[in-house]
């Protein structure tokens, strides 16, 4: 059972549970069930380990969302605001924490920081940020200010009154949030955090995971309908329409990953990427893009958050919920986002495999589980980036986009995956010809860049939209007097 993996959690747990079972059940007259009990206990403990691992790192996600949004919404834009992490605003650096380091180890950091401040620092006194700065955190950055905010939020939700609308369908109203949160948490069962950190390794784990992942929309619809409110009803119907429209392309994209890797088992998909030497994103860049877009729609984030469009539907299908039930649905939303990020990391970014594992020396010293989390958090940055920079589309527009664009594109992606697997993949060596990913990635990038340039030079030349405001009559002040 024990492997050479330094984090063989499953092996340790199995050893421990074996001894527990032998010393309890094995001593009794039911000794023939020893193996079964040890297996059950192992699964039980591993489920708790996975659950705890994902739930505790959910704090990182929420923290990242808050801090990144704050940085993105800073008017200087992403790049310059990242710079403000180490170069101070208004010519003043934040806190001079390096002076507190022992044995003068912080002196070079301070020198570097002063130099950067002189060269790239911002000493414009009128920068509006210097006003905002007045409200910012004055403590030390390594205390991760705001990291445990959600614990406080959760405590607050716990103490709130549980209110049910008078004319709500009480049973469905009560069940819906638990339907959403329970199915979301169940998704973790099939998500491995490392080669030996998983709770379930069934043959069809991807299929099962996607099936469970698709139950939550039903809960959303129940919640919207049972609240007996027009806004929640509209939100629930929108949610049903949107999620069914995006479920199909999502599943076809997942199917293309399955076809490419030749397995419905999550762990085998990851190991296939590690063994063949190429991550799936370099073979299916279109698939990665489609997976990202459909997942944003599935987890109902901007720009696809019509079911809870707060501008017109108040809070959509959430409107009537309060207290901890609202808190559960809120956490379920972020858990679903987290599942989406983890799935992207596993399907397209090679799961726990370190980048350039064979090339960079000592990189395999980093535990596998670290890569899983780093990759999924990296994907989450994209989610936040989208949210900070995009607007909300309309229901008819999102449905049109889903059916007319994403569905055909996902079929194209599936055909590509099939062709790659059948005719390009060298089954004997178990490797991809190295030119194939390079070619596909560069073609994909070139197409993306070409399509991203959507400016119409003729329209700009003719002074039509989008910059069409002009003065039709030249207004001359006092003209009326003449």
């Amino acid at each position, binding site marked *: 059972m024990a492997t050479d993996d330094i984090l063989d959690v499953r092996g340790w747990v199995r050893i421990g549970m074996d001894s527990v079972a032998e010393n309890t059940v094995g001593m009794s007259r039911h000794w023939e069930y020893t193996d079964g009990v040890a297996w059950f206990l192992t699964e039980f403990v591993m489920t708790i380990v996975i659950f705890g691992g994902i739930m505790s790192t959910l704090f990182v996600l929420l923290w990242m969302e808050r801090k990144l*949004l704050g940085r*993105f*919404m*800073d*008017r200087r*834009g992403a790049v310059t605001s990242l710079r403000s992490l180490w170069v101070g605003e208004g010519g003043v650096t934040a806190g001079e924490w390096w002076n507190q380091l022992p044995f003068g180890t912080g002196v070079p950091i301070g020198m570097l920081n002063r130099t950067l401040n002189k060269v790239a620092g911002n000493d414009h006194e*009128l920068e*509006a940020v210097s*006003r*905002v700065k007045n409200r910012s955190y004055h403590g030390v950055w390594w205390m991760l200010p705001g990291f445990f905010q959600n614990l406080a939020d959760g405590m607050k939700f716990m103490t709130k009154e549980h209110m049910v609308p008078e004319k709500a369908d009480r049973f469905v109203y009560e069940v819906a949030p638990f339907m959403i949160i329970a199915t979301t948490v169940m998704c973790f069962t099939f998500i491995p955090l490392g080669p030996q950190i998983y709770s379930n390794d069934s043959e069809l784990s991807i299929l099962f995971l996607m099936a469970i992942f698709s139950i939550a929309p039903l809960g959303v619809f129940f919640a919207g309908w049972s609240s007996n409110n*027009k*806004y929640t009803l*509209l939100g629930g*119907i*929108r949610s049903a329409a949107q999620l069914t429209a995006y479920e199909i392309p999502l599943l076809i994209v997942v199917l293309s990953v399955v076809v490419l890797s030749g397995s419905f088992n999550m762990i085998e998909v990851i190991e296939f990427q590690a063994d063949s030497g190429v991550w799936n994103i370099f073979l299916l860049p279109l698939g990665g893009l489609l997976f990202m877009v459909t997942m944003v729609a599935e987890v109902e984030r*901007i*720009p696809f*958050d*019509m079911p809870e*469009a*707060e*501008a*017109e*539907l*108040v809070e959509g299908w959430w409107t009537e919920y309060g207290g901890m039930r609202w808190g559960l649905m809120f956490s379920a939303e972020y858990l679903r986002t987290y599942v989406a990020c983890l799935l992207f990391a596993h399907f397209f970014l090679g799961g726990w495999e370190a980048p350039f594992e064979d090339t960079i020396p000592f990189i395999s010293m980093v535990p596998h589980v670290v890569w899983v989390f780093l990759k999924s958090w990296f994907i989450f940055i994209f989610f936040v980036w989208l949210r*900070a*920079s*995009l*607007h*909300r*589309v*309309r*229901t*008819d*527009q999102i449905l049109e986009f889903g059916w007319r664009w994403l569905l055909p594109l996902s079929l194209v992606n599936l055909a590509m995956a099939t062709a790659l697997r059948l005719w390009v993949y060298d089954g004997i060596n178990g490797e991809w010809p190295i030119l194939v990913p390079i070619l596909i990635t560069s073609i994909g990038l070139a197409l993306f860049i070409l399509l991203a340039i*959507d400016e119409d030079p003729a329209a700009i030349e003719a002074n039509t*939209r*989008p*910059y*069409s*405001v*002009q*003065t*039709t*009559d*030249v*207004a001359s*002040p*006092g*003209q*009326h007097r003449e």
Partner: protein
Amino acid sequence: MAEMWISMGPQHPMTHGLWTLKVKIDGETVVDTEPDLGYIHRGVEKICEARDFTQITTYCDRLCYASANTWSHAYIYAAEDLLGVEVPERAEYIRMVAVELQRIASHLMWLGAYCPDVGNLTGMVWCLREREMMMDLLQELGGSRLHYNFPRVGGVKRDLPIGFAMRCRAKLKLFLDRIQEYEAILDESTIFLIRTQGVGYAKAEDMVNHGVTGVNVRAAGHNYDVRWAHPYSIYDELDWTVAVERPSIKGSDCYDRYRVRVEEMRNSAMMVLEGLDKMPGGAETNHPSGDPAIIAKAPARAPEGQTGFHHFEDSRGESMFYLVGGGEGRGKHPYRVSIRSPMFITIPYAAKCMIGYKIADIPAIMGSFDPCIGETDR
């Protein structure tokens, strides 16, 4: 789904104030609308009948919290018409600076509210941050952040503070750069364009028939700006042009209204910069309060039966004040104060504009007309 009425408001994110929009929907499509106004009617006109001419300014400030200066100035010009006061030219320039800064702040407030209407919070944070600069400048003039109580009958409360011109120029220069960032996040975003273009068509002739004025009607190609058509104050001494959108056959859509407001922010900033340059006596000089250079002597009582009238280009349209003097019997109070609110006329028209569009277009269309309920209900 059968048709049903939804009551949006009085507490609803779409309303930007306290009013109710009853919407009849068929599925996602709006079939009929019915605005319901009057939730915050305070009776400002009646209150003003029991106040001095100086005291009324504070009430006019509170007609619209997003655009206080324009409303108090609209009143002040009417009061000066009634009382027959000749205002020093320097005071007119200072008033122009205050009003145009307020117009920028008001349009920024509008854009900041419009971005979340179409689903983007970043635009709101950016706009409100720039609005903060304008409010700092106005605070230097008036002393408070929202309700400045700045103009006086015959002039202004205070001269420009020392250093105001320098700070104002620097901030406006910065602001003119930052308008380009709004255009980068809005005009160059396809989602923003598909949400606003082709939505909420309003024709110029319909709007003129309804009495809609200001930015909304200029967006439809009708070149009517009170500052240009009937120049008051010193607007005919400035070098500026009215921002007018070239209309399409169907009229103006939400995007047109957005563009005109952004252009108007630019124009206002340029006007303030020019006004600071042309300021009689120089923008850096500072007269004490009550100096004849910034305020003229004004009578406290208006003769009976005499009327004063002024129409003013507010941030949201053409506002009008009509005052009737009360004579000795009324003391220092006017006999009658009548206020024309541009949004009171615009909101019912905007509500009719939504028919035929989707529910998601309701905030996009309503927000593009820039409703302000304080002035609507008065």
